[in-house]
């Protein structure tokens, strides 16, 4: 296997985020929602490693706990995107003709609704944003990229000689899709998953910044940035840590995707 610096750095950064999430599930230095008015706007130090915010909440605890919603967004986006997108992409490539066209047109149409717009629409329809509306929006928005990438890769596989031979021998389309296409497009889908994961984190951060995702009691990095905004001139420290956390997580998944692409197949292309 080829060595790839991107892969190593990316995996390390992703590992840090996952570790933060696991740690936050069993232990946090402070209750992330425990308001301590006397400890407002403390500087980084002891016992508040990253200081406290305008309400006296421990920033370190909230940054740790914020990794949960960040990873949740990514997992849901990739799950919805892959589960809906990959079969549609493979089907579009295998059937071709009118149905292939319809699937691609539909994918193009969904491209016109970025995650942010979908989330706003859902929030409007449901009477307010929630984790559910945000996750569904991010998930749906990630579908078209999976459709495109799966279709492109499937078309390539389907034009290979051994697939043509299998078809000539009377193997059904479904069987070919299952035993030839899916295993061969798996690397492409894996790379796209990593890219989509990063995009989902960015989208969730923007949504929670706008108050269209988790409620204020659920720690989320985007929300923390929003809460930090009144203090930007006096205490930029409040924005530094959640900002850094977002950058580390997104960088990690982007590099991981790049690294996987290097290692699995240098000719793969990403779709954003």
């Amino acid at each position: 296997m080829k060595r790839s610096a991107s892969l190593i750095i990316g995996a390390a950064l992703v590992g840090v985020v996952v570790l933060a999430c696991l740690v936050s599930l069993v232990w946090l230095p402070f209750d992330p929602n425990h308001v301590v008015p006397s400890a407002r706007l403390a500087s980084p130090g002891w016992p508040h490693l990253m200081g406290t915010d305008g309400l006296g909440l421990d920033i370190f605890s909230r940054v740790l706990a914020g990794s949960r919603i960040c990873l949740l967004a990514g997992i849901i986006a990739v799950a919805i995107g892959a589960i809906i997108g990959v079969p549609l992409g493979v089907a579009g490539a295998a059937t071709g003709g009118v149905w292939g066209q319809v699937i691609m047109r539909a994918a193009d149409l969904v491209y016109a609704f970025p995650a942010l717009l979908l989330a706003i629409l859902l929030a409007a329809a449901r009477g307010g944003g929630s984790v559910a509306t945000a996750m569904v929006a991010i998930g749906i928005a990630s579908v078209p990229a999976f459709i495109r990438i799966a279709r492109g890769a499937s078309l390539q596989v389907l034009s290979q000689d051994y697939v043509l031979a299998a078809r000539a021998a009377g193997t059904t389309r479904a069987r070919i899709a299952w035993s030839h296409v899916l295993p061969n497009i798996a690397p492409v889908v894996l790379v796209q998953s990593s890219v989509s994961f990063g995009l989902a984190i960015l989208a969730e951060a923007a949504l929670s910044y706008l108050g269209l995702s988790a409620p204020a009691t659920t720690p989320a990095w985007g929300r923390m940035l929003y809460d930090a905004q009144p203090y930007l001139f006096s205490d930029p420290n409040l924005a530094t840590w959640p900002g850094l956390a977002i950058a580390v997580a997104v960088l990690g998944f982007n590099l991981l995707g790049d690294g996987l692409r290097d290692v699995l197949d240098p000719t793969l292309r990403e779709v954003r």
Partner: protein
Amino acid sequence: MRLSRLLLGRLAAFVVSLLVASLAVFLLLNLLPGDVTAVILGNNATPAAVAHLRSAMGLDDPVLLRYVHWLAGVAHGNLGASAFTGEPVAGLIVPKLAVTISLVGGGMVLAMVLALPAGLFAALHRRQASGQMVLATSQLGMAVPAFLAGIVLVVVFAARLRWLPAGNYVPLTSDPLDWFRHLILPWVSLALVQGAVLVRYVRGAFLDVMDQDYMRTARSIGWRRRRAVWRHGLRNAALQIVTVLGLQLATLFVGAVVIENVFVLPGLGSLLLRSVNGRDLPLVQAIVLVLVALILMINLLVDVAYLVIDPRLRTGRAVVE
């Protein structure tokens, strides 16, 4: 002949997409629980008053009929009225659209100014450290959401250095210089992030093109390396880059919602957020429709740009015998 048929086809696809999208938006906002009458009358309204308002607003009609009525209104330039103030929505949207277009247009131009030369440079120096540096920098830029970039810029250039205003909008018509000063930070925060993404695509497009046989032909007839890229690479790379530019512009119009929030700009995004929070569904519906129409129009322009750039699409495959 062929060209006009292709253009008509693209235009038809645009209209159909817009219709389907508008239907989806309309159904989503009108079928899910929640009722505009509660917003107008408040939660303590009598059932009789609600029933009266419902029939007056045509809410008792089947939803498809209501869609057709709404669509007919839109076709006549009537996007509906705000559930709160009763003002015509179109009048509310137009001035905000000017703000958003200033923001997005400037941001996109700046992103291109940064990314096109940087991407070309990274492609030409793909094996040198300098080219790899551009790539690594772009990787960092891609990891930062635009609103975070905006916050950092405010901290540095508005809070610390006090060089530029931290927010607010001054119309171009009242003071062009102040308009410009107020938009610099928003533009830069959009451009840094979009530019970082764009750099990678521009580099990829040029690398692709530089590996093509026709580039080798160009060099074999005496073009120098850079000039060959300029003369024969640009148009071919543009085919790929135009797609990304279209996608980015579309993303920016929606992403502007967040940036307008950071810099307190009274644009379409701010209006949209306010109408969502206030449950002003007719206004939400109209703004979303405008945004989707903008995005689909950008896609249409990309398709047309293809036809202009690529003669293979324009002129069929008829072989000269």
